[in-house]
């Protein structure tokens, strides 16, 4: 398992989801991707995308004008 980071700041829905989707496609099951966004809508969209595509949100947290979402890559089933 490896950890990666993705900067999706100053992007608006659905670009943070698209960037997450494209980066996750390059990773292995079990890898963790930490996505940083400024669009608070990402707190809804990225978890929704994870649920329907077989990935897991390990946690979310809010920073100064930012939200951070930790995604564990699933097996794509």
């Amino acid at each position, binding site marked *: 398992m490896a950890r990666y980071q993705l900067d999706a700041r100053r992007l*608006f829905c*659905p670009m943070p989801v*698209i960037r997450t989707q494209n980066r996750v496609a390059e990773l292995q099951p079990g890898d963790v991707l930490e996505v940083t966004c400024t669009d*608070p*809508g990402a707190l809804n*969209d990225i978890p929704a995308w994870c649920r*329907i*595509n077989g990935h897991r949100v390990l946690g979310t947290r809010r920073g100064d004008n930012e939200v951070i979402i930790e995604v564990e890559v699933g097996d794509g089933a």
Partner: protein
Amino acid sequence: MSQSQHNDSPGANRGSEKLPEGRAPGTAPVKAVALVSGGLDSMLAVRVIQEQGIHVEGINFYTGFCVEGHTHAIRKKDQGKDKRNNALWVAEQLGIKLHIIDIVEEYKDVLLNPKHGYGANMNPCLDCKIFMVHKALEWAEKHGFDFIITGEVIGQRPMSQRKDTLPVVARESGAHDRLLRPLCAKNLPPTLPEREGWVERDKLHDFSGRTRKPQMALAARFGFSDYASPAGGCCFLTDEAYSRKLVDLWQARGRREYEMDDIMLLKVGRHIRPAPHYKLIVGREEGENNFLEGYRKQFVHLRCTSHTGPLVLLDGEANEEDLRLAARITARYSKGHLAEQVTVQVTGLDGVSRELAVAPLPPDELKPEWHL
């Protein structure tokens, strides 16, 4: 919410002679990719096909002009509103995967050179649909999917969903009879999935026209009680005010082209053009000002320093007289709009700032034709 993917239907397996290479005869499941906009029609189309035991996955295209969430995410007063992405939400209700594809760059040619022209505003709906079905076809071929479904209904939309234009979409996209419209299929010639028996034509629908009643009834039958507004409201290009600002941008630059930042900025603030060679983008509230802050280094910008006021970006070339007028307009939208004189800071592209003492422009001097 149903997550079912039925696989006991006669349509679940295809005839062996039609199987792509590499699949065992009689065992490969039929798969369809659906254009999912987030609206009701595509939601219903997917469920109709799911009910026939077909594995469906969704595809959603991002053109840059999608209404989804942008302004809600920017404007402070809207930040308490539900910001769900409707396509993702629909996919979750249907229990299907959703693939969101960024087509911002490729879409420029669709918008700038539409073979079939524009609708009421700058919406190239027919070319847009042809392009999206073509992209879905490419995706389907790459991922081993057998046909494409859409939520189109004959007569539903004035440009892209007419009896004479639905065949144009099928033909010019290259999808031909691999394009199935489950909601109006009975009004159209049988497609490949119907002829091959993958899909039972009798279980498809014959909706037509602008009425939404059949869709509402079908939604009720499927137990869908929450869904987004009908199609057409999801693209800024169908919006008259947005289209006017886009055309103004091209006229001012003397060329028809755009970048992502251009189309984002057209969604934000008041756009005021006092002269052909420059315009002002005035933040209307805190959220928009915060958004415009991100563009400060790319634009000459103004802000009232003696009173609270908006951030104003200046797009174009402005001489000293123009800057004074821009400062007066900036002051007009500040808390000091009734004061005799206010101070406005002007910052150039080199980052150097200076202050101008100006009288706020009276409302009757702000010409209506300056507002885009």
